[in-house]
């Protein structure tokens, strides 16, 4: 992949702040998918993730002047999205499960496993029963594949406190999955 052939994030941020509004689309295009999976697993449906990411980009635009390090836009943007995910009002349980079910409903066509699809639905439902903090550490580690130290750096917290959160999450997930199968 050719690297460095595009404007840097900092260049685009500075251009937008200087009045070239249209260039914000470049940033959106560049990063709209980066956390789409994270938002989907955090909120339980692609619908909700799309709304959250859209809102986060609009908010980031509004607060662009407060982005202290324009070349690190994406990390700053992640925190805005994260806040938006945490603030998401819990949808009523039945519609969240239905959406999680719909979103994975056809996976079994390609994977060839109705059991796999059911496992995914079950885990997604169980994830939604965790606190947002617990769900987040689980998603960042087991879905996004980050290490504890990478997560700690991103969330400005410590590895031991992340592990404590995660270990509670494991127990709660196990409880949920056992009680609902």
């Amino acid at each position, binding site marked *: 992949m050719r690297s460095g052939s595009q404007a840097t994030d900092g260049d685009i941020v500075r251009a937008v702040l200087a009045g070239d*509004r*249209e260039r*914000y*689309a470049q940033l*959106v*295009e560049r990063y*709209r*998918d980066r956390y*789409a*999976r994270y938002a*989907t*697993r955090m909120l339980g449906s*692609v*619908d909700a*993730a*799309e709304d959250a*990411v*859209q809102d986060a*980009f*609009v908010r980031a*635009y509004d607060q662009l002047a407060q982005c202290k390090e324009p070349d690190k836009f994406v990390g700053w943007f992640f925190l805005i999205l994260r806040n938006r995910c945490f603030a998401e009002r819990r949808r009523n349980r039945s519609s969240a499960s*239905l959406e999680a079910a*719909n*979103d*994975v*409903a*056809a*996976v079994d*066509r*390609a*994977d060839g496993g109705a059991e*796999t699809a059911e*496992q*995914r*639905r*079950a*885990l*997604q439902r169980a994830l939604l029963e965790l606190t947002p903090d617990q769900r987040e550490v689980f998603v960042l*580690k*087991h*879905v996004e*594949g980050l290490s*504890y130290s990478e997560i700690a750096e991103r969330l400005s917290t410590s590895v031991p406190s992340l*592990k404590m959160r*995660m*270990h509670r999450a*494991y*127990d709660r*997930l*196990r*409880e949920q*999955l056992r009680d609902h199968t």
Partner: protein
Amino acid sequence: MNGHELHPLVKQLLDGDITLADLPAELRAEGEAAVRLLAGVDRTDVSIPAVTWRVMAKLERRRRRFAPWLLAPALAIAAALVLWLAPRTPAPASLVTVRFVLVAPDARQVSLAGTFNQWDPQATPLVRAGATGVWTATLTLPAGQHQYAFVVDGARWVPDPGAPAIDDGFGRRNSVLTL
């Protein structure tokens, strides 16, 4: 603390710090059961390309202080929200999650027919979200070229108004999905 907690070593196993082989024999079963817990982790990439134009349109709309956004002309009251995967690392068989949406408040049933399901109008029903008349279905499809259309009330073949369309050779139009 209740008695249902996983053993700390099993938690380390889930963390990836140790392997099953490192567990003492009496914990193996619990370890294997716990690993199955992770079997439902869905790592499918999600892509939301509609966000780009929606964000820019919202910013534009606020700037001009327009009335509520009309997603499509009154006749074609549907919007396609297509989500697709741009694989970050090349995968041998790329799968893409795609969401299909049709706004059809008067329809009694809506389904999706296309090259990915042998054009069978009964294979892939859409689900209606409450009273809003928004019908959706989400499929995971292989990367490649797909054509499709919605089938309304079992009889009316309707291309997706938000998607590129081509002649189907039979006097109608098919929608195009290029993944």
